[in-house]
C-alpha cells in the first residue's frame, strides 16, 4: 500500500476508503444528529413542564403549522418524542458511537493497515448517510414525521389513517431504518472479519485491549439482532401498504370497521424486542469498552480482572437475547413465562456487577489523573450503577406492572443507557481526539462541560423516578389533563430547567471540538502515556497507519506501573525482559 497518492478533495474527505476518515464522517454526522435530537427534547420538555403555554421558540422552530401561537401541536409532540428517541438511540448512540470508534480504533489497535474491506466500509457510511437524509426529510413532509414512538408499535404505526404521523412520515421512517440496518450490517461484517484476521503478529485475542473485545461482541450482536427487526418491519410494511393482517385485527376507526382480522400486535412486540433489548447493549458495550481503556490508562494501573471483563461482556451479550419479555410483562403474558423472563433479566445483574466491581477495583489506589476523559469514564460508572439498580426493580414482573410505561422507565433507561453511553462517547472523544486530529482539546472547557453535564443530567433523570412512582405515564401530551398529576408540575419544571442547562453546555463541547481541530495545541505522539498500538503511529495521519513495518506485539495492553520498569507504562511493542512474566 502506498503512502502517497494523488488525492482530490472528494477522494480524501467524501468518498474516502480510509478507516480514520470514515470514523470522522460517522462522528461528525452523529454529533450533528445529536444536536438535532437534543433540540427536539428541549422543545417537547417546554410543553411537558408548561402544558398549553405559548413559547416563541416553539413557533420559531416549528412554524405556524406545528406550533400555532407558540403552543405545541399534540401531533407534533408525538412526532418530536418519536424522532428524538429514534435519533438518539440509532443515529447517535449506535452509528455515531460504534461507527466512530470501531472504524477508528480497530485497525489502529490490532495493528492493521485498514479494515478488511475499505469499500464495504465506505458503503456502510454511505448507507448511513442516505438513511440520515431520508429521516431528516421526514421532518418536512406535510403530515409530519413518524409519531408512533421509537418502538413503532402497531396499530398506530400500521394504519396510515390513524394519526397524521402514521402516514408518509412512518413510511420514510421505515425506509430510513432499512437503510440504517443495511449500514450497520455492512459495518458489523467488516469489524468482525477485521478483528479475526488482520491482527498483527503477537496480537493474540487475549492481548486485545478490552475496547476491541467490546466492539467485536457488539458487531456480533448487531449482525444477529438487526435482521429480526428487518423481518418485523417487512411484515409491518405489508400491513401498511398491501393490507395484510399480521399485526392487525378487529379495529374500528371513526365508526368504520376495518377489514383486518386475525392479526396480533403482540407479535410485533415480540419481534421488536428481540432486537430491542440486544440493541440497548449494542449501545452500551462500546461505552463499557472505551471506559475500560480510559480508566486503566488514567489510573496508571492494569485493568482489574481482564478475563472477567471479557467473560462478562460475553455473558451480557448472550443474556441480552433471552430477556426481551421484560418489556412485555403487561401484555397478558402467562405469569409463569413472566417469571422466566424475570429470572433471566436478573441474571444480567451478575456480569454487570462484575464490571462495576472491576472498574472500582482498578480505580482503587491508582494514581488517578483527572482528565476530562477520565471524569466522563467515572461518570459512566456512576450512571451505570444508578440505572442498573432501577433495572432490577423493573426486571421484577410484580413490581414492573406498577411502573411500566411511566416516567420511572424513562428515568431508568435514560440513566443506564442514554447517559452511560453518551458519557462513554465523550470519554472516547476526549481521549482519542489527539490521535484523530493531532491536537489537544481544551481541558478547562472539558471540565466545565463534564460537571455541568453531569449535574444537569442527574437533575433531569433522577426526579423522573418520583414522577413514575406517582403514576405519571410517559408519552402523554399534557401532564395536567388529569387533576391527580397537577401536584407534579414543580418537578416537571425542575426537569425542564436542567434539560435546558444541560443542552446549552453541549455548545461548549462542540465549540471546543471544532476550535481545537484548528487552534488546539499540538499533541505529542503519546500524550496519555498509553500502552496500546494506536499511539505508536506517527502524528501525521497516513494511509496504512504505520510508515514501515507494522509493529509486533509482545505483551498485553495493560502494563501500567509494572515493577521493574523505568516508565510507568510499557508499550505493547516492548519485548518481555528476561524472566519477566507477562502479567
Amino acid at each position, binding site marked *: 500500500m502506498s503512502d502517497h497518492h494523488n488525492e482530490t478533495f472528494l477522494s480524501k474527505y467524501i468518498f474516502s476508503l480510509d478507516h480514520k476518515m470514515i470514523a470522522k464522517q460517522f462522528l461528525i454526522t452523529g454529533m450533528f444528529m445529536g444536536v438535532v435530537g437534543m433540540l427536539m427534547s428541549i422543545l417537547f420538555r417546554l410543553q411537558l413542564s408548561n402544558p398549553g403555554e405559548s413559547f416563541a421558540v416553539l413557533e420559531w422552530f416549528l412554524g405556524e403549522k406545528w406550533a400555532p401561537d407558540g403552543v405545541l401541536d399534540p401531533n407534533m409532540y408525538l412526532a418530536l418524542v418519536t424522532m428524538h428517541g429514534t435519533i438518539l438511540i440509532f443515529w447517535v448512540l449506535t452509528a455515531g458511537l460504534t461507527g466512530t470508534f470501531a472504524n477508528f480504533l480497530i485497525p489502529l489497535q490490532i495493528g492493521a493497515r485498514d479494515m478488511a474491506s475499505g469499500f464495504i466500509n465506505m458503503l456502510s457510511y454511505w448507507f448511513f448517510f442516505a438513511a440520515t437524509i431520508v429521516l431528516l426529510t421526514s421532518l418536512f413532509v406535510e403530515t409530519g414525521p413518524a409519531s408512533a414512538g421509537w418502538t413503532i408499535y402497531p396499530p398506530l404505526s400500521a394504519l396510515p389513517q390513524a394519526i397524521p404521523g402514521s402516514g408518509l412520515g412512518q413510511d420514510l421512517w421505515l425506509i430510513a431504518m432499512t437503510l440504517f440496518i443495511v449500514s450497520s450490517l455492512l459495518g458489523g461484517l467488516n469489524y468482525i*472479519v477485521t478483528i479475526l*484476521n488482520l491482527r498483527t503478529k503477537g496480537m493474540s485475542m487475549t492481548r486485545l485491549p478490552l475496547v476491541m473485545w467490546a466492539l467485536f461482541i457488539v458487531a456480533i450482536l448487531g*449482525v444477529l439482532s438487526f*435482521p429480526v427487526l428487518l423481518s418485523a418491519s417487512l411484515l409491518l410494511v405489508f400491513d401498511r401498504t398491501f393490507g395484510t393482517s399480521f399485526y392487525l385485527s378487529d379495529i374500528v376507526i371513526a365508526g368504520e370497521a376495518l*377489514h383486518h382480522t386475525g392479526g*396480533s400486535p403482540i407479535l410485533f412486540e415480540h*419481534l421488536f424486542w428481540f432486537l430491542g433489548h440486544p440493541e440497548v447493549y449494542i449501545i452500551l458495550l462500546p461505552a463499557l469498552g472505551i471506559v475500560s481503556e480510559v480508566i486503566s490508562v488514567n489510573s496508571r494501573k492494569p485493568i482489574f480482572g481482564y478475563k472477567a471483563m471479557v467473560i462478562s461482556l460475553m455473558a451480557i451479550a448472550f443474556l441480552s437475547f433471552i430477556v426481551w419479555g421484560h418489556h412485555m410483562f403487561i401484555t397478558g403474558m402467562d405469569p409463569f413465562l413472566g417469571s422466566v423472563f424475570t429470572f433471566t433479566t436478573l441474571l444480567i445483574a451478575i456480569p454487570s456487577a462484575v464490571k462495576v466491581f472491576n472498574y472500582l477495583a482498578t480505580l482503587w489506589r491508582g494514581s488517578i489523573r483527572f482528565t476530562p476523559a477520565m471524569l466522563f469514564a467515572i461518570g459512566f460508572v456512576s450512571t451505570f450503577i444508578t440505572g442498573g439498580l432501577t433495572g432490577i426493580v423493573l426486571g421484577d414482573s410484580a413490581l414492573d406492572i406498577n411502573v411500566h410505561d411511566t416516567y420511572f422507565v424513562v428515568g431508568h433507561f435514560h440513566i443506564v443507557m442514554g447517559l452511560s453511553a453518551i458519557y462513554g462517547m465523550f470519554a472516547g472523544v476526549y481521549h482519542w481526539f489527539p490521535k484523530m486530529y493531532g491536537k489537544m482539546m481544551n481541558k478547562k472547557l472539558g471540565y466545565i462541560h463534564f460537571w455541568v453535564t453531569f449535574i444537569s443530567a442527574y437533575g433531569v433523570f433522577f426526579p423522573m423516578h418520583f414522577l413514575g412512582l406517582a403514576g405519571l405515564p410517559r408519552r402523554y401530551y399534557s401532564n395536567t389533563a388529569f387533576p391527580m398529576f397537577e401536584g407534579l408540575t414543580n418537578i416537571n419544571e425542575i426537569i425542564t430547567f436542567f434539560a435546558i442547562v444541560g443542552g446549552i453546555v453541549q455548545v461548549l463541547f462542540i465549540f471546543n471540538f471544532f476550535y481545537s481541530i484548528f487552534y488546539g495545541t499540538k499533541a505529542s505522539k503519546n500524550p496519555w502515556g498509553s500502552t496500546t498500538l494506536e499511539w505508536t503511529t506517527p502524528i501525521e495521519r497516513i494511509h496504512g497507519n504505520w510508515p514501515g513495518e507494522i509493529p509486533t506485539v509482545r505483551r498485553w495492553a495493560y502494563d501500567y506501573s509494572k515493577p521493574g520498569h523505568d516508565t510507568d507504562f510499557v508499550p505493547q511493542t516492548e519485548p518481555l525482559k528476561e524472566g519477566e512474566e507477562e502479567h
Partner: protein
Amino acid sequence: MDLNLKNTTYKQLLWIGMASITLFFAGLTSAVIVRSSESGWQDISMPRYFWYSTFVIILGSAFLIMSKKIVRRGKNPADYIFLTFVCGVIFAIFQFKGWSALVDQGKFFVGEGSSPASSFLYVITFAHLIHVIGGLISVFITYTKSVNSKYSKENYLGIELTSIYWHFLDILWIYLFAFLLYII
C-alpha cells in the same frame, strides 16, 4: 492481501452474512409459531410445485459440487455452473406456479380469502426467493468468469463462495419447506 488470507476473510464474511440471514428467517418463522398458537389459525395444504422446487434447488447444489471437483482437476467447470443457473431459474418458475396454485385454492396473499397463515406463506416463500435471486446473480457472475477462464486449480474462491451460498439457500429452503408443511 495474500491469497490464503483473502480466502478465509471472504469465507468468514459469507458465513456471518448467512448467520444474519438465518436470523431474519428465524424471526419470520418464530412469528408464525407465536401466531399459530392463537385462535383462528387455519392450515393450508402445500401445492405440489413446492416439492418440485425443492428437488431442483438441491439439484443446483449437486452441479456446483461437481464444478468444484472439476476445477480442482484443472478443467473448466463453466457448463456445470450454467446448469445450476438453469436450476435456479426453474426453481423460481416453480415458486410462481406454487403461488398460482394457492390462488386457485382460494388462498390469497391479502384481502378476502386471505388469512394470517396464507399471508405468512407468501411472505416467507417470497423472501426466500429474493435471496435465491441474489444467489442467481452470483452464479451468473461465476459462470461468466469461468467462461473467461478466470479460475484455476489454485484459485477458485468465487466458485467456492457461490456454492457455499447456494448450499445455504438449499438448506434454508428445506427448513422453510418442512416448517411450512407442518406448521401452516
